[in-house]
């Protein structure tokens, strides 16, 4: 049999084949005037368009490489499918044209939407809220299209190559109030901590936001390196709002803004009493053994058995936020009361594991804190209770020092 591949013209055949493979359906980039190009209207709602000035400067320095991809619309204009940021940057630079790869206009709207999603999720730096919006957008498109098998969330998980639970986490972010969404977008917070807050009402979410901010400020005061709340703490706050604060919020709604001073004062008293109890037990624990974490709470509203060391914090969470109560006297008292409680709670879990020296360090620290507070910042009306508390704490600290 003749070996055809050795024939003189076989090379020609090969050339043709190579050319075909490279060029037959190769993409062709054309320079298109910027004023003939439209953006996809959905793009700005889904993706963030920040940092375009930086991109524009980069393009100015290095020149524009590659091409954006556009559809040719039936009316002769073009619509961007991928490259909105580069397009904006070129506009900013005052260029006339931009290299584009033109593809045919998808016949129906859902396909255009899907194209927008698929071309953008791969090459962008996506923040959690971007993911949330794009997943939601995709699911809306698929719902409209109606051609999918099984659950929509499974389809989305397959499409975005994520776990189903992640899909749920992202989409539930959309039910949050804007303030919480901002927090979720902050890379320092774990966004997934906020997902369970989606079932809370708007009022509750505002309350949650206030609490997180308040606790954050305190963390900043206490030790410089820990800046934000941990995921566990946020989840706990949400959990508290879900399970225990129903009563409180209900009362507040009934009171219609004129909150019941008596119930409030009694509440603060009980919390003070609790803290005193707590301190006593710390004393006992420090002298004897390390069972500080086994603090018992006496508040009747606590039905769910949660980790008891945390419950003391929950106590403080029953107090209303700053916004709602303003700078009233009782509010000031609560501030003072709350701080020691919070501080006392934080050493308790660690003490159970790492022992006395750390505990007493922390105790001295917060005793100092309280002293400084009582001296300067607030005018305390009902300071008797605080004084008692202070005395007990200092006594406890001395005890500890002596024992060491």
């Amino acid at each position, binding site marked *: 049999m003749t070996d055809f*591949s050795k024939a003189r013209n076989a090379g020609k055949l090969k050339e*043709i084949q190579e050319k075909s*493979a490279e*060029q037959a*359906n190769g993409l*062709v980039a054309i320079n298109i005037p910027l004023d003939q190009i439209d953006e996809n209207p959905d793009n700005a709602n889904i993706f963030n368009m920040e940092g375009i000035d930086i991109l524009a400067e980069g393009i100015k320095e290095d020149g524009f490489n590659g091409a954006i991809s556009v559809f040719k619309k039936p009316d002769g204009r073009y619509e961007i499918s991928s490259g909105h940021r580069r397009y904006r940057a070129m506009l900013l630079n005052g260029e006339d044209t931009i290299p584009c790869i033109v593809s045919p206009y998808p016949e129906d709207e859902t396909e255009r939407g899907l*194209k927008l999603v698929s071309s953008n999720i791969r090459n962008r730096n996506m923040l959690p809220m971007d993911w949330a919006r794009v997943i939601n957008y995709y699911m809306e498109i698929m719902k409209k299209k109606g051609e999918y098998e099984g659950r929509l969330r499974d389809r989305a998980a397959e499409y975005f190559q994520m776990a189903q639970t992640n899909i749920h986490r992202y989409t539930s972010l959309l039910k949050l109030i804007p303030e919480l969404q901002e927090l979720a977008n902050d890379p320092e917070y774990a966004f997934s901590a906020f997902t369970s807050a989606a079932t809370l009402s708007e009022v509750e979410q505002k309350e949650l936001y206030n609490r997180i901010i308040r606790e954050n400020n305190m963390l900043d005061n206490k030790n410089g390196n820990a800046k934000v709340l941990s995921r566990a703490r946020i989840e706990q706050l949400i959990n508290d709002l879900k399970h225990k604060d129903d009563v409180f919020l209900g009362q507040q709604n009934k009171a219609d803004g004129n909150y019941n001073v008596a119930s409030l004062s009694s509440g603060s008293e009980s919390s003070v009493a609790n803290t005193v109890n707590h301190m006593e037990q710390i004393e006992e624990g420090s002298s004897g053994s390390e069972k500080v974490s086994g603090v018992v709470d006496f508040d009747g509203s606590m039905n769910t058995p949660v980790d008891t060391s945390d419950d003391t914090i929950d106590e403080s969470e029953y107090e209303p936020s700053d916004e709602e109560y303003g700078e009233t006297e009782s509010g000031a008292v609560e501030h003072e009361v709350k701080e020691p409680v919070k501080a006392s709670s934080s050493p308790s879990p660690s003490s159970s594991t790492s022992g006395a020296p750390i505990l007493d360090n922390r105790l001295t620290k917060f005793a100092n804190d309280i002293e400084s507070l009582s001296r300067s910042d607030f005018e305390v009306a009902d300071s008797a209770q605080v004084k008692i508390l202070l005395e007990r704490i200092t006594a406890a600290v001395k005890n500890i020092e002596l024992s060491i």
Partner: protein
Amino acid sequence: MCPRWTHLTFPIFKFKICSKLDITGLLAERRRSVLDTIAIFNQKGGVGKTTSVVNFAACLEKEFGKKVLVVDCDSQCNASSYLTTFTDTEEGAVRTDLGVEEYLKGNIPLSDVLNRVLIQFRRKIVESNIYVVRGTKKMDFIDDFDTDIFKRLVSEAEELGFDYVLFDCPANLTTPTLATLSAVRFVLIPVSYDIYSLSGYDMLIDNVQAIRRTTNINLQVLGIFFNNIRTDWNLDKYMYESNRDNLNGLAFKTYIRPSRTVPTAALFGIPYPYYRPRNPVANDYIELVNEIIKRIKKVKKGAK
């Protein structure tokens, strides 16, 4: 190398499967899909462009239940004379002498230039679902013409309910060819066992690129199919296999085997699937058309 008998038995088995498609094709007709436009074009002559157009049209109509329009852009008018054999001789047939030239020049609607194709099948002359726009002898170089004229033709064909428009192009770049390439979505290239049919394809790639830069960004090479080859012959086998492996998936797996009955069918003026429905070559055509339809679907899906 497969022995000769497999050529006889295997396609017959496949033919049975294809005949089932008839029903699904008819069902599909009700919810009509979007019109597909295909130009069958190679800048080398004698590779079977016209024969392929006629037989593809017949396959699409007979086996897949589609309504097909054939536009003859070749000034030799072979496709139109093939398809209008009975239309021109039969009394009472719907026909017109106007053709592509008149359509390119003036503002006449598509319905004025349509000829309904009559086909002799089982000794009866029946009306088919194929329509043809005649080619005319003086249409190759028209001075002023609108490059978008065939785009108008395509949209008119869509309104008239056609599923496919097949353009039979001549072997060079003439006025109707340019108009065709700026209007169609796909180009289908017949090649044969000789290397010159592939150099025609080489030239075509450049032209397709140029068209895509200027008038028609949607233009795409759908694929290459082999016409008139048999793979138990060494040269044919070499060309078929080397192209199948090296053309980046553009070559169709199905090829059309040579047969004397194909030119005989042209002599009788009957498209091959009607002339010899049980012949293996007819099955080749059906098989190839099936592959083309699948690839069109795939390409469209990929574009989304």
